[in-house]
């Protein structure tokens, strides 16, 4: 992403450069998805048109797409933010779950607050829960060298078990007739409203994306984060505290994922129930890479995946195609975005000099 775009032509060219590979990747992935649909005996045209109808076909569908995209913007931001420091936060899922249940507790545990206090309070609580949980892999990475890919995945399982326990134990909904594991409903004042078909959570996510961009490109901390990501040795040599930067990056990444969970609780589910937030954190990986790990790239990427989610139930209902095909398409998108040389070869686009993400520099190094 070029930062100094002076003339209009330059600006257009940099926009084209930012979107050409992801767009081609999405189209190629959809094409292969169509082949899989054909093999399994489904009509890809029916499936894709039902998918489009369910995601953009009406005002309701559009609103649903925005609703589905909202937590994805946050999980995408969480993963993208960590990428900037060369960290791969697969644990956005677990951080999101903790954010979701913490927002629920603040939502149902406190009564009598006005919405303009209760909503941000629950959001903040969710963010902090995600941030604290994410500090663990950050500190482990910084001080012991334990690779965050494994520790965050393991912590995902810990988070699932922990939230399952909380929702079935101390924070269980004890209202008569309830037998499932879930928390009570949150107070009306903690709910994020939908204004004229636009979920307010989505607007919040746009603001947070802007803050993430500002933090990364307009502050000293952001400069340190990006330097550590590009070359940790150079960062250490120039006197930056690499360990501190790694932990801070993971905490901020966790904060972002935590808000994602909180927004889902306060804007959609209105309680915490195990199984309701599954996959949102993992989608963040696809979204971050599709958005080329840039906060502003994450937004259209989240909208795309959100549309796939919103449309997939219509697709299942109208065309009889199982929802999981969208997972397959997502994996293919990820493949083509990462394997940009295939896409370049097909589109005859010349390679550009840009920052490349390198994550797998080994297990023990920092």
């Amino acid at each position, binding site marked *: 992403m070029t930062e100094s775009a002076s003339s209009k032509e330059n600006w257009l060219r940099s926009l084209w450069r930012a979107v050409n590979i992801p767009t081609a990747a999405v189209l190629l992935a959809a094409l292969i998805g169509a082949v899989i649909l054909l093999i399994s005996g489904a009509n890809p045209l029916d499936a894709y048109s039902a998918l489009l109808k369910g995601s953009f076909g009406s005002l309701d569908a559009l609103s649903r797409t925005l609703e589905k995209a909202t937590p994805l913007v946050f999980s995408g931001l969480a993963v993208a933010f960590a990428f900037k420091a060369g960290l791969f936060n697969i644990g956005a899922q677990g951080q999101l779950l903790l954010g979701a249940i913490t927002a629920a507790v603040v939502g149902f545990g406190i009564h009598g607050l006005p919405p303009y206090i209760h909503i941000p309070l629950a959001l903040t609580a969710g963010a902090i829960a995600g941030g604290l949980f994410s500090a663990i892999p950050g500190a482990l990475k910084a001080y012991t060298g334990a690779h965050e890919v494994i520790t965050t995945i*393991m912590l995902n399982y810990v988070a699932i078990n922990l939230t399952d326990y909380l929702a079935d134990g101390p924070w269980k909904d004890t209202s008569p007739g309830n037998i499932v594991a879930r928390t009570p409903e949150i107070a009306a004042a903690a709910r994020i409203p939908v204004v004229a078909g636009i979920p307010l959570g989505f607007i919040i996510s746009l603001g947070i994306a802007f803050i993430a961009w500002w933090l990364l490109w307009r502050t000293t901390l952001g400069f340190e984060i990006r330097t550590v990501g590009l070359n940790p040795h150079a960062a250490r040599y120039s006197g930056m505290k690499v360990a501190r930067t790694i932990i801070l990056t993971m905490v901020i990444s966790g904060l972002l994922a935590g808000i994602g969970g909180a927004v889902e609780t306060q804007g959609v589910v209105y309680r915490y129930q195990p199984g309701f937030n599954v996959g949102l954190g993992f989608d963040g990986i696809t979204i971050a890479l599709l958005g080329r790990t840039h906060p502003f790239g994450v937004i259209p990427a989240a909208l795309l995946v959100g549309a796939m989610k919103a449309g997939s139930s219509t697709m299942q209902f109208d065309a009889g195609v199982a929802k999981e095909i969208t997972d397959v398409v997502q994996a293919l998108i990820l493949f083509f975005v990462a394997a940009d040389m295939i896409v370049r070869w097909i589109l005859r686009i010349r390679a550009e000099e840009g920052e490349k993400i390198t994550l797998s520099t080994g297990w023990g190094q920092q």
Partner: protein
Amino acid sequence: MNTTLESPPAWKQYLARWGWGLGSALLLLVLVLWNYAQNPTSTEAVLASTVRQSTPLVLGALCGLWGERAAVINIGIEGQMLLAAFIGFLVNVWTGNLFLAVIAGVLTGAVLGALLAFMSVTLKIDQIIGGTVINILALGLTGYFYQQGLTTHGKLQAIPLGPLADIPIIGPVFFNNPPITYVTILLVFFSHYLLFYTRWGLRTRAVGEHPRAADTLGVDVYLMRYANVIFGGGIAGLAGAFLTLEAVGSFERAMTNGRGFVALAVMIFGKWTPLGSWGAALLFGFATAMQTQLQFAGLNIPHQFIGMLPYLLTIIVLAGFVGRARPPAADGVPYEKE
């Protein structure tokens, strides 16, 4: 390697390298024998369950090890296991043949291994992303083609090895197992031999430590990496086949449950060696077996906390050991020919 003039005697080096593991193994052995004296049946049950639980982990670790010894990090083991478990399961449902099903599982793992090799060796995609592609792809494909209510035609059954199976403790634990478990134990020793005592193993390690030097001496770096990652994929496929065809007898969505990642921790704990990985896998298997035992013992701990144990153990092991363990020098770095 340590090339100082006065290197300590071999036994001291050995003790420094494996002392911690040997010490804890000895402690466990004493505990087990003591427990056996108290309650022989439950001890045997726990130990047999330890071996069963360790099988997919040691297979996964061997898969990761073969890749990383050739400098390809494989975090797609989870996906390789999952898709192999699914394909093996489907082949069994269609043909009713268990042997064919296992072969299909192994081949599935190998094909995904080839995909990983293509991504990381030829395309030079970031290997962590390549592995993630495999994981998501496997989750999506198995979810999409999954149909409820299918079960396998039978399961691989235990084959007692004659009089060996009658030895107390060791017999029921090691010599009365279903076929994949036997194959796994053989694979551990075979991998050890292959890695450290053959030309193939030497070349693999050379490619993982110093690909440029290996290339100069005429070793085909790309070929070695492809072959080892595909071989590893086949082993992960066997782990998948174990899950559906030997352990459970049916397929469930996301049934691998993180085992592919735990296997990576097992590999690191085992310091990238087959025998070390086996020991580490047995330790993890023991933790999981104890988990079931604790649940039956009626302890007043919520089962979710017991469920966290293997994952917490993985984190602790990683945090405590990865700093001191030494991965192959070129691990994760794509090789560019000059």
